[in-house]
């Protein structure tokens, strides 16, 4: 009887269900719980990181934009005004228009248009491109890429950078890569 009293005082007496507190604690799977919690936390961090890769707002220039009426451009002129906003040069030659993407094909720097030397020149490793976009000096292995160019319904020229035309893949023969001038 004294023994039962002592057990009661220590909280180890058998409860109504048949297990006392010590047995319950001993049977609780701490290690399993810890691993489950750890895996869960890791998965949560991973999911949050993945979510972080897709921001709510992306400050990216539009891929498709209008650049003005065909008559706004002069023959032989390389328009550098769209470089900052859209990342293209628009070239107007005798026959029409094409849009060159302002990314060097060597390592992705932004070349400069040198009007006096009549070429695009990259300040990083010295690649040079003719007005057509053809690479002729420095290490760039292929010509500049052209963007899709077309005439919108309102008469303005529309450029779509999501469609790229690569010279070495024969893309410059595609009618979408060049907009003939028609007055």
């Amino acid at each position, binding site marked *: 009887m004294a023994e039962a009293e002592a057990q009661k005082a220590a909280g180890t007496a058998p409860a109504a269900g048949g297990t006392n507190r010590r047995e319950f604690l001993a049977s609780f799977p701490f290690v399993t719980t810890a691993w489950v919690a750890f895996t869960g936390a890791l998965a949560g961090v991973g999911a949050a990181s993945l979510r972080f890769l897709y921001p709510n707002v992306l400050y990216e220039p539009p891929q498709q934009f209008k650049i003005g009426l065909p008559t706004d451009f002069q023959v032989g002129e390389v328009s550098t005004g769209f470089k900052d906003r859209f990342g293209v040069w628009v070239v107007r030659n005798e026959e029409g228009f094409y849009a060159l993407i302002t990314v060097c094909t060597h390592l992705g720097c*932004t070349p*400069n248009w040198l009007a006096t030397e009549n070429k695009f020149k990259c300040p*990083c490793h010295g690649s040079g491109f003719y007005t057509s976009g053809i690479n002729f*000096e420095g*290490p760039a*292995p292929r010509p500049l890429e052209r963007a899709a160019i077309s005439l919108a319904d309102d008469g303005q020229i529309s450029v779509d950078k999501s469609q790229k035309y690569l010279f070495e893949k024969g893309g410059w023969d595609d009618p979408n890569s060049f907009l003939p001038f028609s007055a």
Partner: protein
Amino acid sequence: MIELLKGFMNGLFQPAIALTLTIVLVSALYKFRRVVTQNKLVASLVVASPLLFFFVSAFDENFWIQFKRPDNIPIAAMMFLVVFFTWFALKLAVDNDDRIRDGRPPKEAEPEEEEKVFVWPDLVYSELLCLLLVSILLVVWSILIPAPLEEPANPQLTPNPSKAPWYFLGLQEILVYFDPWLAGVIIPTFIVIGLMAIPYLDTNPKGNGYYTFEERRSEIFLFQFGFIVLWVFLVFEGTFLRGPNWNFYGPYEFWDPHKLVPLTNVQLSEFIWARWLGIGLPSFWLVREFFGIVLMLVYFIALPVWLASSFLRKYFEQMGLFRYVIFSHLLLWMVLIPIKMYLRWTVNLKYFVAIPEFLFNI
């Protein structure tokens, strides 16, 4: 007179001449090592040569503009340190070579050099002193010469010229001559792996723990070729000789962004098909690049085989096939870099093999 001299110096710093001169000077340093280390006048001249060059050149206003840029000051200091420590190691090596020739042990093996010191307090004390001195130097430096901070980055506006941090200028220079996947990925990987592989490829115990040159001539020269010519010189070139539009400028030349350098790079295929054979370029890439591919196969497969029976016979016999293959290919990649640079500078060669269809260019 001075203008003439400056023009002459600008000519000397033309890349092909400057690279050749660097190779010649490094070779001469080791060839005439006795005079360079034992004649006091010659020794002082060699050690002081970078200081003299930068001091005298600083009177030229065009040089001064580039020299005083906060980015470039450490490069000038590095030139002095590299020359001094190369010379200093050579002096210790020559002293030891003399001792070994007399049948004595190298200086490092003398009993009085064998004495051991305690970490505490000897080592920790000098480390503390170094820490204090370097901290003072950095604080004073950063107060005197403010960091070259620029306006916020604009992806549409690349600074002209656009330079990598100084320790990457050598790689940036290599990028001018090679496709990015080679100069940006393969070659840096080979440099790191090659440096790590040195103890496995070179198991000769001579020179361990003491300075020597005569016992390890080709190994030391090979290493110094890679370090001084292909790294330090390229850092110097990228810092002081590359200007707007990544053109070459002499050290006393004004960095005119409109300097017109007529360069029309020619592929090997264009040389062979159009210029020598007089027929146009074949349209199919395998036919077009046939000669370049054969040349590269000869360079990377036939040449090591031939070298194994001639110049590198000793290494082939020491190393065995597997290690020799690794060694010879690391060596050939290293030598390909100056070969390609010379060909670009002299005949405007662009790529040996150029297959833009698969982004494969060598």
